[in-house]
């Protein structure tokens, strides 16, 4: 509680200093708008209802990209963990797919899928794939050898060992990867909109930049940050709920 209060006080102090600096005239409002101007713009966007469709689009892209990236990352992680030969063959390709800057794929994805939701969802899914893939691969392959031997001794099949031992053991690591993926999903959705979006918070930032509306840009930063924190905290809550069943430590 005390830490939260300290955090809130720090934020209030920083905002006050920012406001004072802007009011002193040391910096042009075009370069850095005052927090009061940002708040006014934000309230205007909320009250007029202009913000909600954009928020809905970004949240949808984020959710769909996260879902696709999670399913693919989890599936590929399990597949490559269970078949080491496949791992050796496919690993360089998986790595290469992640080393290509996702933003650079944007124009190509627009050519393939057109403007709109799909290219952004694809970019988001590609970004979310890797943390889920890596954590699943690591978690599933690093199961305690003694427990594996126990399952062999008990005559457990491959699927049983995966479902009853490997995945439950790997769950804390996989959930940590999911938390990373959630943060990256928001980055993916916003950055994807920079390239090919017509709607959404990222597309709105590009539109605000074209009219040099720095207040709106910062107001959208605030919305994006709030969205990210809300989703991250929800994921943490879900993780705590799931891990309570496992009572580790």
């Amino acid at each position, binding site marked *: 509680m005390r830490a939260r209060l300290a955090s809130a006080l720090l934020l209030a102090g920083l905002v006050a200093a920012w406001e004072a600096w802007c009011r002193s005239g040391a910096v042009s409002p075009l370069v850095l708008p005052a927090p009061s101007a940002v708040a006014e713009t934000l309230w205007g966007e909320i009250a007029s209802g202009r913000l909600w469709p954009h928020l809905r689009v970004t949240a949808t892209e984020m959710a769909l990209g996260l879902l696709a990236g999670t399913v693919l990352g989890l599936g590929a992680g399990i597949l490559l963990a269970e078949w080491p030969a496949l791992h050796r063959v496919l690993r360089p390709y998986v790595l290469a797919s992640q080393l290509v800057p996702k933003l650079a794929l944007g124009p190509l994805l627009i050519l393939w899928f057109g403007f709109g939701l799909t290219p952004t969802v694809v970019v988001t899914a590609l970004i979310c794939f890797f943390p889920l893939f890596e954590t699943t691969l690591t978690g599933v392959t690093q199961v*305690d050898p*003694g427990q594996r031997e126990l399952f*062999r*001794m*008990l*005559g457990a099949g491959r699927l049983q060992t995966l479902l*009853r031992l490997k995945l*439950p053991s790997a769950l804390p690591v996989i959930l940590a990867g999911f938390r990373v993926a959630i943060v990256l999903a928001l980055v993916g959705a916003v950055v994807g909109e920079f390239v090919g979006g017509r709607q959404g918070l990222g597309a709105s930032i590009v539109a605000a930049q074209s009219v040099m509306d720095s207040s709106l840009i910062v107001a959208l930063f605030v919305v994006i940050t709030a969205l990210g924190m809300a989703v991250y905290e929800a994921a943490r809550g879900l993780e705590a709920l799931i891990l309570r069943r*496992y009572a580790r430590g």
Partner: protein
Amino acid sequence: MPIEPFLTLEGVRYRFPGDPADTVAGVDWSLPRGAIHCLLGRSGCGKTTLLKLAAGLLAPDDGAIRIDGVPLRGPSPRVGFVFQAPTLLDWLSALDNVLLPVSLKRRPKASDRDEASDLLAAMGLGALAGRRPAALSGGQRSRVAMARALIGRPDLLLLDEPFAALDALTREELQDDLLRLCASRGTAALFVTHDIAEAVYLGDRVGVMAAGRLVHEGAVPLPRPRPPGIRYEPAFGAACRALRAIMDEASDAPSPPIGRAA
């Protein structure tokens, strides 16, 4: 009339890939039903490998292993195994850990749950059946692991130094639990240990292993049942000294294996 052996090892050899020498170098041994055999040896002598061969977790390079006359082709449901570490699943309660061998085969019935509860109660853990392993002490976890190995009513229990990490008093309690449960269920046991006193206290017979070979096999000259106080009697000390002498002799100059020539 001789007792029909339950577990038979004939000329069993095993070498880990890349190793210059056999880890198990031609072992012949027969274990009758119901008896408790201890396999004694220094660290690295091959006793855990021999146990895993007897469990079907490893396949011998040479020789044969039979359970009740049937060649062993892999882990058998008639054999229970207790590992060095308890290897409990953190996300299951003590009761569900005990039921694991059953739940991997079918949905546990009420009778299975009753048996698991009875086993935990026999181990003094009746009140802790709902606890997760993280909320149990080291001794309690070892007891749960032992109950898990016994739930299928195996004919043979293989134990790989399961009490090595426990304090002396808890270890003695667990030794008594093991003796009691094996006696009441007629379960044979092959207990691997490097502790001479543990082997003498538990074993009807003790085998001594050195450099991959079984260099001695003989009966423990102490009556059954053995009260805990027997550890302080001269006969117990004499039995320990005799085994120590065999181990010393084996480590100075490896003795020829007993039984079949290597």
